[in-house]
């Protein structure tokens, strides 16, 4: 029996070629970890190319996972363990590894040719450059091939199971439960018995290898995390967002219509929703981004919950139709899973640089509400909130997620259906005459939603300016000014909850204000600062338009306001313009989320300044 050592948290990064099944391996480890009862957060990071040239740095795919015996907020900064299935994976990730970290490499791949492809002049396993690390140089490929010999696979197919061998080894090292992975492999390869059996055998062999080899003297245990009681599942941002839209359909009583064009990293929402037609979900893969949003607006006109999902380049294409939605005042949810830009940018890398486009990226005065999700599971609630606002105020709503949330995952306490808000709305009722399609609800300023098929409400709407009330075409100067201001007033008046501030002692002089996916790293940094005795308050914006009514008061209550963003200061620009607050920006645009440690340093500098 080997020694077992207790840890409170561990960060593992699996890395290999994009054809090595790294994302699958990481996903399985995350599932095992979730089932075990740790809190966790994941960060998949992969190239846009489906199969970049094998063995090269651009082809490296990785999956980082942070798990702990307490609640955690990020996938972690620096890995404690790196699994590198080839030299390129080692080289691409080594700089982020702290000295002393554990490295597991597949020596089989460390050939002269592969070393050259990765740009290594000499074998790092032999030249002493890894002396500061705990290196486990194992021939994972040969071990795997040996373990699956009985199943008659070609050597190439046999070697492909090495990711499962590595998973088995890591599962042993951290005491993960294995039953679910075996069941998973049985399902996944049900149609190919030999592959199924080989993968299961490789997985078990990896576990057994850990238990018997002298290479690993200890294994580790991370106790379960005390999370609030309830039923949990692991969920990614894109799946949570899709579920949120289905929930919105159910809670509004309206059929969901999704018009979309495939685009990274939003396509998985289209994939997920297309699987749920039994919920009355209609998904329409359009000929282009414009048709995707156009069809959704058409469905909204007909009384559906119209939704389109895309990423930044798609929002640019949809802008004119979103403007039409503003003019005709119909509900529409536009999901922007942001990625690094401009133009094509880096499709698989995250960024928050579409905020100003979301607010202002249309011609004319065309205000619309903007809602942002802050964590993978929060995409569920954010989707419901976006739908609520769209339906209640008859307006397009921009819902911002990003690549980090889309693919990242975390445990989620599954809500009870009756905890979810009732977002039902009423269509305009039939009437005999004098229907005014642009009359307004005095409280919300929303116009009636008069769907075709309702007798007596036949009316025409369009992008040309409409006369207040009747909706007839109008070029009257006073009417235009009134309508522009009415549309603005409707958005300004949306019921948005106050901005909550986390300031435990109430005497912090520095506020960190963020929005979107930076919530986790900011909150983790704030914890570090407080743990070290620093005083700092934190607030996070879900609503970017309109801002919560108390935003100005919150900002003015602190001496200094720090605004970290994965852009060049877009929220800070808005805050300065709106509230005349001298916000301090901290900006990174590396296509990667913030690290908690870097933000903690920045916060401490601002406190000290």
């Amino acid at each position, binding site marked *: 029996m080997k020694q077992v050592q207790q840890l409170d948290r561990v960060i593992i990064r699996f890395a290999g070629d994009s054809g090595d099944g790294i994302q699958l391996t990481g996903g399985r480890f995350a599932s095992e970890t979730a089932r075990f009862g740790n809190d966790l957060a994941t960060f998949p990071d992969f190239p846009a190319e489906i199969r970049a040239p094998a063995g090269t740095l651009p082809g490296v795919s990785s999956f980082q996972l942070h798990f702990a015996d307490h609640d955690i907020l990020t996938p972690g900064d620096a890995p404690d363990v790196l699994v590198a299935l080839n030299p390129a994976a080692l080289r691409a990730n080594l700089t982020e590894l702290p000295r002393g970290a554990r490295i597991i490499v597949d020596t089989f791949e460390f050939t002269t040719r592969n070393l050259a492809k990765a740009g290594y002049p000499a074998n790092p396993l032999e030249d002493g450059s890894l002396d500061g690390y705990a290196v486990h140089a194992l021939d994972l490929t040969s071990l795997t091939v040996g373990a699956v010999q009985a199943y008659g696979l070609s050597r190439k197919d046999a070697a492909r199971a090495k990711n499962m061998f590595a998973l088995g080894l890591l599962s042993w090292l951290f005491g993960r439960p294995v039953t679910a992975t075996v069941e998973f492999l049985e399902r996944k390869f049900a149609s190919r018995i030999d592959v199924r059996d080989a993968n299961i055998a490789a997985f078990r062999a990896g576990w057994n290898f850990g238990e018997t080899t002298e290479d690993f003297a200890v294994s580790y245990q991370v106790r379960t995390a005390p999370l609030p009681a309830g*039923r949990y*599942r692991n969920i990614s941002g894109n799946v949570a967002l899709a579920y949120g839209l289905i929930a919105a359909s159910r809670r509004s009583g309206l059929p969901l*219509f999704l018009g979309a064009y495939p685009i990274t990293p939003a396509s998985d929402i289209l994939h997920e929703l297309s699987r749920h037609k039994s919920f009355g979900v209609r998904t329409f893969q359009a000929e282009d981004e414009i*048709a995707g949003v156009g069809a959704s607006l058409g469905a909204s006109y007909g009384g559906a919950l119209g939704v389109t999902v895309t990423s930044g380049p798609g929002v640019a294409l949809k802008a004119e139709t979103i403007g039409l939605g503003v003019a005709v005042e119909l509900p529409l949810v536009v999901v922007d899973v942001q990625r690094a830009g401009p133009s094509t940018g880096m499709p698989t890398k995250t960024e928050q640089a579409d905020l100003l486009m979301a607010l202002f990226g249309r011609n004319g005065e065309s205000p619309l509400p903007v809602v942002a999700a802050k964590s993978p599971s929060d995409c569920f609630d954010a989707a419901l909130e976006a739908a609520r606002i769209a339906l209640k105020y008859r307006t397009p709503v921009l819902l911002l997620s990003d690549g980090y949330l889309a693919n990242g995952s975390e445990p989620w306490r599954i809500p009870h259906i009756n905890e979810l808000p009732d977002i039902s709305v009423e269509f305009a009722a039939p009437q005999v005459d004098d229907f005014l399609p642009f009359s307004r609800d005095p409280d919300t300023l929303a116009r009636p939603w008069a769907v075709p098929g309702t*007798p007596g409400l*036949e009316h025409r*709407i369009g*992008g040309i300016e409409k006369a207040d009330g009747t909706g007839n*075409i109008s070029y009257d100067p006073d009417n235009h000014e009134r309508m522009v201001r009415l549309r603005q007033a409707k958005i300004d008046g949306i019921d948005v909850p106050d901005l909550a501030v986390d300031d435990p002692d109430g005497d912090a002089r520095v506020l960190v204000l963020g929005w979107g996916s930076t919530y986790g790293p900011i909150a983790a940094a704030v914890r570090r600062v407080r743990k070290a005795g620093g005083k700092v308050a934190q607030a996070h914006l879900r609503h970017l338009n309109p801002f919560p009514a108390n935003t100005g008061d919150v900002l003015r209550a602190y001496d200094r306001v720090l605004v970290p963003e994965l852009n060049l200061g877009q929220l800070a620009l808005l805050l300065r313009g709106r509230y005349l607050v001298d916000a301090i920006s901290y900006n990174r645009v590396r296509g990667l989320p913030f690290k908690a440690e870097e933000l903690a340093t920045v916060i401490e500098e601002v406190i000290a300044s």
Partner: protein
Amino acid sequence: MTEIHNGNGSLNGKGLALVPRAEGKQTLKDFKSDQEVRWCPGCGDYAILAAVQSFLPELGLKRENIVFVSGIGCSSRFPYYLNTYGIHSIHGRAPAIATGLAASRPDLSVWVITGDGDSLSIGGNHLIHALRRNVNLNILLFNNRIYGLTKGQYSPTSEVGKITKSTPMGSLDKPFNPISLALGSEASFVARTIDSDRKHLQGVLREATAHQGASLVEIYQNCNIFNDNAFEALKDPATRDDITVKLEHGQPIVFGTGDNEKAVRLSPTGGVEVVRRADIADSEILVHDAHNPDPSVAFALSRLDDPAFEHVPIGIFRSVDRPAYDQLLNEQVDTAIATKGPGSLAGLLHSGDTWQIN
């Protein structure tokens, strides 16, 4: 569906099967809106509007279940003048918006009103995809071969060498033939008619509305300001009978009068050709088959007036039975519900690996 004439073009008559029917008798007045019509005096759009307004009562549909969707351009003002539901949308996007509406509301009769610039230039992509999908739409393409609302630039159907404000030395690009384009886009119903011939126009609309799926109706429409008399040869009693090739399903294709009587036959080089009727036997004359699953002959007929405006076929080129996209989409939803049961939100949220924390 007894009111719908189901002869020449239509195979199925299912186009409006799911749209509720009006109780009382309707008149033209029921479909006139209170808005003042504001096209240029003499515009061909007036004739088309009058033809549509007087045709709609014949359909006998509940007025509130009819929606006209348009893009941008002179013709796209059309919805304002009809007392049905309507959206005057943005340039080129009407087929996309109408697709979402038709796909989610099979109980509506959805019409798209568009022009040659709107549907063939800025919105070309949406038009071809709506046609290949066979969304249950009636698409009326007003072709005046010019940009009117922007004051007279050449359009994608203008003839080569067109002198306009934007092409003072003549336009350089070969025009689209909308019928050929539609046939190449897998359209299941393709027809051409003309603004000045109300009887023919309404006959085509009758077939188009009865057709299940996308029907494309090109309507030659005169812009008397920027491209006057573009179709005069088809209207002038002195010439019209010698150029107009009326296509009628099941009928031999003959046209012209007296000594000028002509016929269309299959050409030995492929395609079709016009010959003097007197020169060939009756058995050689091509009999129009709008229901032919193979669109080749329909395509050849669409090229008869290319390049010169010498023989112009009008009528229904193609009308074949093919499931409509919206019908198939709704069937998938029904099948999913039938096989899996109506979706349970709690079941969905709890799907996959879950665990309990107490």
